[in-house]
């Protein structure tokens, strides 16, 4: 199974607004596998936070994903779940969208890295 996956290559998943999903799927990342599972989720104003959370957790459980792209404003909705994910793979990338510019102070990985320079930890 592992060998098969290595040959096939791993996927990029997308959780984002309509334009982000349409754009990246136009780029060719979209997949619907034999189990009828898609590797993308379009989030609009009617989508419940629990639904986003559930999809994100399902993506984390899948072993054929290496990168999960998520709009930063959607990542803010499920920040506690993203902060709990400390493994390097799948890499969770918080990406900006056309409506919400990138804010480095909210990025989980940067906040974790900033912890290195915490005055209490500095030798």
């Amino acid at each position: 199974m592992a060998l098969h996956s290595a040959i096939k290559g791993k996927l990029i998943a997308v959780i984002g607004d309509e334009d982000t999903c349409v754009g990246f799927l136009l780029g060719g990342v979209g997949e619907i596998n034999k189990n009828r599972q898609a590797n993308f989720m379009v989030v609009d104003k009617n989508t419940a936070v629990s639904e986003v959370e559930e999809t994100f957790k399902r993506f984390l459980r899948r072993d054929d994903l290496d990168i999960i792209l998520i709009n930063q404003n959607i990542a803010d909705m499920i920040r506690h779940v993203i902060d709990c994910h400390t493994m390097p793979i799948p890499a969770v990338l918080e990406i900006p969208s056309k409506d919400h510019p990138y804010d480095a102070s909210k990025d989980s990985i940067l906040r974790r890295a900033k912890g290195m320079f915490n005055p209490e930890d500095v030798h």
Partner: protein
Amino acid sequence: MASCDNRKMNEIDVELDKRALRALKLMNELIASKLELEKSVKAGSLDLAKARYIMGNRNVSALQLPTPGEGADVTPLVTVHRAQTFQDSNSDTSMEATISLQLERVTISTPSPDDSKQRSSQQQALKKRNPESRESDEQKPLLDAAEDDDDNDAEEKSGSSPPSLQDPIKWFGVLVPQNLRQGQARFKRALELVVHTANIQLELHATVAQFRKLLDTKRSMQSDLIKLADTEQPLVA
């Protein structure tokens, strides 16, 4: 003994400084890369909006995306491959692996006239083969004939099922505006930036982990030195 420990402590300090500097550099690179990604996504979204203006509001939306309920599977045209690079983490510890990702695209080959001719000749051959097999089957018992037919069907199915690769732009129609094609190109460029950003993030992750490991080693050495000093002092007194 103490001088040896001091030398080790100094080495760890130097390694910690290196990791801290590297982390700062990577943080800067990560922010720059994400800002570049933002530009690319914004430009792509603008192209999608222009295409929407030409084609109609509902014709460039999530409605055109494939849904899991539909019959056909969707095969990805872009995947990532893992590669492990080894680097010296510390002078006295073993080599540590850093994962890096590489983008791989599947090229869609459009069928040429020669291919279609070849395919039609193959189909004719299949059509010719069937009557012969049926004639021969008539001589066999009925059960064997049924099995052979099943085998032939299975062979045909397996032969004519290459993974169907389709350019995603075809979800939006055959004659799509140039803006949609431009948008697609911009999002393809954005995907390259995504993989570049993911690689920076993975390296930053590894650097932070190494920094914390070294800091723990240093603290344990410091506590050992303090204990040693406490045990040596009464002996000297």
